[in-house]
């Protein structure tokens, strides 16, 4: 149960009688009709065992009702803080289901589906449902749910729905949860971004690496880094202490384009710098992220772009 830092849940919910709903399925309705016909047959032909058969089936169906409900009841859902998504692409949400170990074996066939927060028409949703066929022996299951694509910006977290028909398919139990919190969607990186502007100190970077410029010799190219960054990167002979302070990805140098393409360009540069393993900072109007590297830094920068 030792948790790595940063994976502590954003929110959690335990499912109980208050938030698990259940209704018969079409097959359940058919069973009702079948039982009625069996009973009428037993009455009309005076078959005592026919009565018994119909009642045993009714008892089994009722037990299935409770079992279906119990498949969800007692589950604890917890959502990991989601990574910022990308404009127009589906976002992955990490959801953990946890159940008491006793009876965890009987929690089968749970489907998880996500919809934009507040959605009320589940039937028309095209988001794929993720099936949790079984819980692990310790009563847990980790699911990656795909949230529907959203535009760049800050959105409420999507609504999650858990559904199950186990064990007989006669009833469908479901629970709906809109976790508190927000989903950040960063701009989509520009497909073919121009190289970083050379002006000022922005063109310098740690380790003496910089984007390739016309005139750099073949020897100067850092091939491995270039391969990682998908763009030629050269070793810089200048070892200016100022250059070591890092690369600046600057709002002002991203051109006079409207807001979204400009943010896209920044995102593309950010990606490039991150993939090259460079140290970079981000300057936005009214916000400055000092140069640094690593996943947490990238996340912070993407958040800044999303909120812009």
């Amino acid at each position, binding site marked *: *149960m030792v948790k790595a830092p940063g994976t502590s849940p954003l929110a*959690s919910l*335990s499912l109980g009688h208050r938030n698990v709903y259940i209704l018969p399925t079409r097959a359940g309705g058919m069973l009702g009709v079948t039982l009625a016909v069996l009973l009428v047959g037993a009455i009309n032909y005076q*078959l*005592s*065992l026919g009565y018994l058969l119909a009642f045993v089936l009714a*008892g089994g169906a009722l037990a299935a009702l*409770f079992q279906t409900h119990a498949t969800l009841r007692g589950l604890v859902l917890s959502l990991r803080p989601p990574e910022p998504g990308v404009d127009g692409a589906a976002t992955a949400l990490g959801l953990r289901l946890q159940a008491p170990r006793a009876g965890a074996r009987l929690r089968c066939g749970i489907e998880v589906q996500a919809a934009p927060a507040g959605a009320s028409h589940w039937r028309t949703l095209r988001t794929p449902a993720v099936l949790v066929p079984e819980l692990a022996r310790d009563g847990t299951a980790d699911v990656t749910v795909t949230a529907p694509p959203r535009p760049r910006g800050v959105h409420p977290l999507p609504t999650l729905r858990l559904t199950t028909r186990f*064990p007989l*398919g006669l009833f469908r139990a479901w629970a709906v949860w809109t976790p508190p919190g927000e989903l950040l969607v960063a701009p989509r990186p520009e497909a073919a971004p121009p190289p970083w502007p050379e002006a000022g100190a922005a063109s310098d970077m740690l380790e003496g690496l910089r984007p390739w410029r016309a005139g750099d010799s073949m020897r100067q190219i850092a091939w491995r880094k270039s391969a990682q960054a998908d763009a030629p990167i050269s070793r810089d002979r200048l070892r200016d202490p100022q250059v070591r302070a890092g690369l600046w990805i600057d709002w002002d140098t991203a051109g006079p384009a409207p807001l979204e393409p400009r943010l896209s360009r920044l995102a593309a540069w950010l990606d490039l710098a991150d993939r090259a393993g460079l140290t970079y900072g981000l300057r936005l109007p009214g916000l400055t992220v000092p140069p640094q590297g690593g996943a947490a830094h990238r996340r912070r920068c993407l958040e800044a772009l999303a909120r812009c």
Partner: protein
Amino acid sequence: MLNHASRAVASAAARSRSWAPPREARDTWFLLVVIAWVVAPQLPRLPVWCGPLVAGVLAWRGWLAWTGRHLPATRWRLGLLAVALGATLASHHTLVGRDAGITLIAVLLALKTLELRARRDAFVVFFLGLFTLLTQFFASQTPATAAFVGVGVLGLFTALVNAHRPAGTPTLTGSAWIAARLLLLGLPLAVVLFVLFPRLPPLWGLGGDALAGRSGLSAQMEVGDVARLALDDSVAMELVFDGPVPPRSQLYFRGPVLANFDGRTWHPLYPHRVTLPLPEVAARRAPARTAGEAVRYTLTQPPSHRPWLPLLDITLEPPQPVADGTDSSWRRDLRRTPEAQWVLAAPAHDVVRLRAESHPLHLIGPIDRLGALPLEYRELPASYNPRTLQLATDLMKASPAPPDDKATLVRMALQRLREGGYRYTLEPGTFGRDSADEFWFDRREGFCEHIASAFAILMRGMDIPARIVTGYQGGEAGAGGGAWRVRQSDAHAWVEVWLHGQGWVRVDPTQAVAPSRTGSLQRLAPRPGLLGSAVSALDAGLAERWRAAWASVEALWRDGVTDYTPSRQQALLHPLLGSPATPGDLLRIMGLALAGLAAAGLLAIPARTAWRAWRIHRGDDPLRRRLETTRKRLTARGLQLPPSATPRQMARAVHERFGAQAGPLAEWLAQAEAARYGKCHARPSSDLAREWRQLPWPR
């Protein structure tokens, strides 16, 4: 040892490699087995073509699953469906009604497998299977049938559970356990409903085929149609005689009288409606002359679902209800036919208990006015049984007595039966068109139906009015001198001939063929099965005890389950209500019982919560108790801790004292703390309790 173990593992692995059907194929086979189980008991009662068709389709589907081939094209399936429908129509001349319905359901169940993807279509098989299981009760409601159907229900449930476990390859036994658990959990509800759901009379009139197929008496007699007479040992009625039991040769119980013969089938002359209601019976006593003492008895008939009351021949006065609180509503429906048979206006769906007075020695009907008899008693269909008619002419020519001395002719016919090499058998095979000819000249064997029919035809051929009486004959004393018991297997058919100067006289031609059938105590019993003969060979006493124990089980089953009738239901609730329960009362009681069950279920969870809270309030908190025990055990191992030590302090001390070997304990203590003081994500207390019991303790 290690070698053995590893070899075993290796061979198991090899087996699983060589025998690993894909999930889809395995599920399909399982479903096929369940279908075969559900349909198989029906096959003997279905038309002949059903067995090969069902077996062939199931085998074909199994082979397709085995080889992983595609399912047959739509035109194949439609073609097979058309063939099945056509064959059903040809066999039953209809597609509706009970028998055609049973055939159709069985065939459809098999054909459905041809468009079956095991998991998706499990429901269709489920519903059709349930109907097929119900139809088995038409034929039999014995404990064995119930057990068979129970296994079928479990199989259908297992298939459904399996279809809803989408992961990998879950074991079938696992699915079966889940299914069995559901059925067991539902059992209390099933019992409450079974006991309290109002038992109703049939909701609407039953079709003509409603009572066909049940063993025992029937409304007509089709001669030569039954190749093998299956003896049904269920009890038809029980009698307690006021005096000694009359000789068995006088124990004829009069059922439907059949007089209309169309060459193939004997029908009653008087349809069921032409009967005399009770007031008229009193006014118009059947003309009869009796001899000897009247026999008085109390008769108990389990629900027969038939309208006849087979009373001891002949009962002239209307039977009376028994004054012991049992249902007497049958008395309203009591009727008598002109042929001295007692019937009810509606089938007896409840136990009938009555007192009656009979005269075993009797003559009935007009004595000397042949013209008073309906012509039907002398008619024979044209161009049937020519050799029998020739025999009739020959006998009349050979008769030494004057032509109108019919009694001599009857004696001569009986003598022919006795001395002509005729044999009684339960397995005569089917007869052709001229059943009497076949009996008299070709086969010379049969059971009571063949003998009585052939005899009656011969009588009519000699211009002697004759009719067939069906009913029961004989019976046996119950265990320990109990009631006299007549079973369905005692069903019998005999003949009445009208003789000038005497009226209707009973003649039992079967007695002439096989005196033991009616005379002595021993009935013709079918050969015992393999197991039965083995047991008898080992120890006759054991077999006897076994039979007695089984008889008592059957009696319990009959009283509690199969014959749980409206009157039994009312008798059960009578003490509770103080008055006979109406269906409305029953519904109310059932509603109360169900509400009670539901309330118990609803209250169980809050009650458990409250119980736990109360225990914690009292200081009897499981987690705290476990921590306290942990502290004591640690003290016993030399680690002194103050009673006030928190789980975290304990964990730290344990870690310092025992090092790595106390890792699990320290971890558990940390979780216990989280469970008590943490916010969310705490482990459920049941998990903690289990882990605590399995903890390795440091030394």
